[in-house]
């Protein structure tokens, strides 16, 4: 069981800020593919992966990061703080 979190326009496109999923995905990239296969909303939300960043357990990671042991995975656009 992994807690998924979405922020900013990704949250708006997915339609929720968080959800819990059962997944066998080995990496962040695998998880994205799984999500995109769900329905057109997810497919649209994740269509431009170049514009998406991911964090595993609140640390920024590359898409090839493994999910073994992860409790929380977050997806969001590039940050715009400051």
């Amino acid at each position, binding site marked *: 069981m992994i807690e998924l979190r979405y922020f*900013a326009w990704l949250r708006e496109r997915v339609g929720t800020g968080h959800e819990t999923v059962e997944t066998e995905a080995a990496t962040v990239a695998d998880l994205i593919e799984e999500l995109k296969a769900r329905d057109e909303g997810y497919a649209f939300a994740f269509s431009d992966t170049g514009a998406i960043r991911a964090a595993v357990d*609140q640390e920024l990671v590359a898409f090839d990061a493994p999910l073994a042991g992860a409790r929380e995975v977050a997806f*969001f*656009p590039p*940050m715009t703080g400051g």
Partner: protein
Amino acid sequence: MPEIIVQAETFDMGAMLNRFAGRQVNAGAVVSFSGIVRDVATGDLNAMEIEHYPGMTERALAKIADEAMDRWSLADAFILHRHGRMGPGETIMMVATASRHRADAFAAAEFLMDYLKSRAPFWKKELTSDGAAWVEARDEDEDALSRWQSGG
């Protein structure tokens, strides 16, 4: 030990600067950066909304501040960033650094800003009379990081 504050409430940048400078015992150079909500090009910004990732935000800011303390000869560092809704003219965030050497205080403050812009989980949305729009990340903000990656 750098101080990190993440809050929705407004704050007084001058009071924060005095508070930070006042606790420095032996650092003669204090640099601050303050970010203020400015109007958009079309001149009709009603408000800005900042979303963040509670938990990760504090971790990311602490990590950035620790990195600055490691890279430069700093006595202290401070980051305050707001989230939620704010109007034009309100202060969004502030960083401050203290050092015996002005060059270190300046470099570290600029480093904090460059990293915070692209590595701390905040997202800005501008609310104008045309509606709401997420602020897009700028390539130059990402580019700004590269200079810190080949030796500070």
